[in-house]
């Protein structure tokens, strides 16, 4: 004859859709005849089954269901929009940054072709750029701010699409294809992409982008602690 624990476990197994191997159900029935505690337990299990059958889970209200559908749709649109907008902004910034650098180099004569074709001395170029680095950074930062301002208008329009409010059409972002690039602009493009790739903060990104022109950075001296050592 099984004990109370075995009987109750067997009943739970039945509810779980499993059967306890090696257990003779007739012995369970015999136990239930004799044990009022287990009879009550089994009665409770049957009651739970019946209550579950007559008390299905509540359904969402039709209005909430409709709102949720709209919200889900908007969330996907917003996500797609933000990815496209982010890519577009990065491309714009890359182009403009490259253009800025190119224009600076060309107008200041750093890369202007000399009367007689002579090879460009890269160390001279690097020295010139290093000397003008603050000016380059200032221009790049100003361009970054201007383009963040430009980007706020498409973002507002995206918000209008998502939330359904009407907004006046804003100006189009300037296109990178209008930015003049020199033929031998591989290096400049690279600089532009690096500047355009990081906007937070732009000055820091630009500084990193121009690191290769500044040469190796001297490691900072270890801070000294007057109170230690001596």
């Amino acid at each position, binding site marked *: 004859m099984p004990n109370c624990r075995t009987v*109750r476990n067997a009943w739970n197994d039945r509810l779980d859709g499993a059967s306890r191997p090696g257990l003779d159900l007739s012995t369970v029935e015999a136990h239930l005849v004799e044990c009022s505690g287990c009879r009550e337990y089994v009665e409770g299990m049957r009651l*739970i089954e019946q209550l579950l059958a*007559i008390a299905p*889970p*509540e*359904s*969402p209200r039709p209005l909430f269901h409709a709102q949720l*559908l709209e919200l889900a749709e908007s969330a996907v649109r917003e*996500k797609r929009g933000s990815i496209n907008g982010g890519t577009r902004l990065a491309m714009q910034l890359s182009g403009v940054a490259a253009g800025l650098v190119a224009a600076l180099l060309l107008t200041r004569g750093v890369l202007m072709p000399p009367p007689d074709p002579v090879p460009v001395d890269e160390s001279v170029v690097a020295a010139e750029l290093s000397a003008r680095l603050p000016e380059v950074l200032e221009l790049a930062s100003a361009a970054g701010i201007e383009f963040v301002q430009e980007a706020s208008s498409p973002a507002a329009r995206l918000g209008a699409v998502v939330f359904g409010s009407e907004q006046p059409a804003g100006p189009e972002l300037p296109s990178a294809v209008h930015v003049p690039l020199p033929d031998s602009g591989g290096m400049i493009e690279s600089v532009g992409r690096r500047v355009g790739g990081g906007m937070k903060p732009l000055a820091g990104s630009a500084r990193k982008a121009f690191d290769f022109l500044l040469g190796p950075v001297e490691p900072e001296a270890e801070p000294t602690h007057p109170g230690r050592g001596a």
Partner: protein
Amino acid sequence: MDDRALVDAIRSGDPAAARALVERFDAVVFGLCVRMLRHRQDAEDVTQETFLRALRGIRGFDGDRPLRPWLLGIAANRCRTSLSRRGRRPATIEAPEEAVDHRPAPSSGDDLAAELQSALERLRPDYRLVFTLFHEQAMPYEEIAQVLGRPVGTVKTWLHRARGELAEHLARRGIRCP
């Protein structure tokens, strides 16, 4: 559209796929939330949060897995967070567990459904969650274990205790099989 195709469509930014996700699963997610939170407005909030989290995080979801346990897992976690926040609020007055209940035993189906809800409310949240996932969402032990991050044995123990406590409460209320 199967789960895999639905996930791919959402990842590609198809708004119709996001609607399909809600159409397919909002009843089960809401059903779990309302059982767990016992409050329709809170359940709607958590259901909404669950879908937004799922849509935002779907790029990191393993598309070879079924969606339903994943969504219910998010919902279960949000419900637990919501309950823990609620627990930090000033306590509401509740009837003591062993107090004598003088209310008449229910007779209609609606009353019996309310009795089950009331009995479920008295379970600790983990037991209630396991009971609801198993009996109302028909999730197998293994999936519940994944949702909760607990061993299957623990899930089984909690479910059996939940049933036992429910049965005891219903017996105290004098409720018998209809």
